[in-house]
């Protein structure tokens, strides 16, 4: 009966293959982004970046992964055993699960959709899993039994609450214009008209700012502000558990970029034949990720009170206003 909602039935093996492909692609993407970030940061700061491992430093991420994997799984004495181990898994779980709704194309060849799933709740699915990732951060910080971790976790909690509302409201404008929650429908709605980034420019800006905050990226990286908190909520983690947090952050970057690309930048639509769709989507995601890196290199970290007042006093009213105006315009036209 679940299939009835999708409109066509996919064989279960197709679903398995799809999920494996998506996972593999993104998993392969993360080290590349890592390298890209370090290289770009180097250029921004007028230095080379990593260039020792492999030709031009291309094997650097591999070396990093091997290093993390081979480290001892160390657990501090003060940590709460089970929660401490579960927390990184929650973060990875939510980041991976959210990948499923990012569309790389429409239904191709009759009955295979080029996306993980197209649920009726659409974008709400991403928000639902976003709330799980919050528990990953908070539990990790709390259960470490260290004050730096705890402070970092608390900061991330406050930050997530403050920016999640603006993020949702920013997307509401697009949802109203497209009349659907499904990312596939929204991307398709932009095929005939202009990309929603033009009419919903304010929404796009708010979404991106909130997205930076939700992924704990600079300039909103207060939860892991290394100058004051050592490394924030993951201070006490080492080895692959730390690696999980690290990887999740980059996967969330991909997710936010993917959602932004699908909702504001026309998704997989672009010039050229249809089969270019997934490539277009990946290109858009990469452009947005470069934006993430660029901002990291450019802007200094916000102070805590600035973070809060920006979230509640600027973004939230602006997002509400955007929703109101859009609602009026949608009804009038």
């Amino acid at each position: 009966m679940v299939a009835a909602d999708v409109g066509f039935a996919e064989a279960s093996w197709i679903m398995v293959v799809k999920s494996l492909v998506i996972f593999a692609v993104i998993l392969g993407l993360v080290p590349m982004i890592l390298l890209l970030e370090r290289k770009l940061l180097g250029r921004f700061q007028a230095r080379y970046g990593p260039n020792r491992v492999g030709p031009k430093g291309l094997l650097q991420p591999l070396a990093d992964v091997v290093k993390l994997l081979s480290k001892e799984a160390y657990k501090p004495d003060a940590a709460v055993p089970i929660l401490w181990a579960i927390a990184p898994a929650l973060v990875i779980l939510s980041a991976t699960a959210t990948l499923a709704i990012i569309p790389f194309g429409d239904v191709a060849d009759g009955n295979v959709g080029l996306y993980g799933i197209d649920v009726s709740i659409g974008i709400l699915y991403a928000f639902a899993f976003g709330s799980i990732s919050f528990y990953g951060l908070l539990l990790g910080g709390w259960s470490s039994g260290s004050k730096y971790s705890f402070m970092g976790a608390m900061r991330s909690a406050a930050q997530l609450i403050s920016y999640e509302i603006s993020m949702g409201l920013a997307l509401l404008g697009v949802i109203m214009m497209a009349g659907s929650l499904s990312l596939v429908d929204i991307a398709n709605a932009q095929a005939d008209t202009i990309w929603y980034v033009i009419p919903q420019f304010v929404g796009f800006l708010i979404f991106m700012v909130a997205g930076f905050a939700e992924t704990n990226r600079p300039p909103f990286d207060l939860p892991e502000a290394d100058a004051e908190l050592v490394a924030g909520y993951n201070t006490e983690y080492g080895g692959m558990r730390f690696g999980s947090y690290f990887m999740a952050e980059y996967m969330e970057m991909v997710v936010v970029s993917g959602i932004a690309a699908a909702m504001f930048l026309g998704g997989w639509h672009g010039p050229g034949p249809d089969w270019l769709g997934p490539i277009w989507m990946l290109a858009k995601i990469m452009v947005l990720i470069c934006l993430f890196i660029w901002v990291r290199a450019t802007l200094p970290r916000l102070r805590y009170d600035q973070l809060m007042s920006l979230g509640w006093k600027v973004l939230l009213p602006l997002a509400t206003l955007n929703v109101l105006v859009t609602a009026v315009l949608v009804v009038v036209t």
Partner: protein
Amino acid sequence: MEQVAFFAGAIGALGGAIAVIALRNPFYSVLALVVHLFSLAGLFLLLHAEFVAAAQVVVYAGAVMVLYVFVAAYVGGVEEPLWDAIPGQRILAPLIGAALFIELSIAVLGSGLKSLGDEGEVIPAGFGSPEAVGRLLLERFLIPFEAASLLLLIAAVGAVVLAARRPAPVDRGGAA
């Protein structure tokens, strides 16, 4: 498959609920409540109420419980007083609870309701989607929906009244 999912959800929901009241550390209680809410969301999914499940996770687990966790993590670790405010309630309360449980079991088992035994109604396409829920809220249940929005406004005003900074002690001389 559905049975497995149902029992997983049901055990999670019941276990979480029991843990909320049984655990001593408030932080764990809150976490148990989170488990409970996620399990409920799973049960909603089984009932094809996708929107309700998502709303459950986003609103309760994602927003409301975050505040709970926040508070419990900050002020947690306060030992509960060990004395009973009402003598004998440790004995009485389980007894009454057990009585209610037996009563409910009798009610459910002894019911002549036909739909309890069979597969239930056939679910129409689009059931539980955001569109269907939105339609219900704006058509059938328009008044309760609007009243709920007012309720939230009033509750916000109430929260401000209760949480606002205390006025400076006594000296009300100037107010008259």
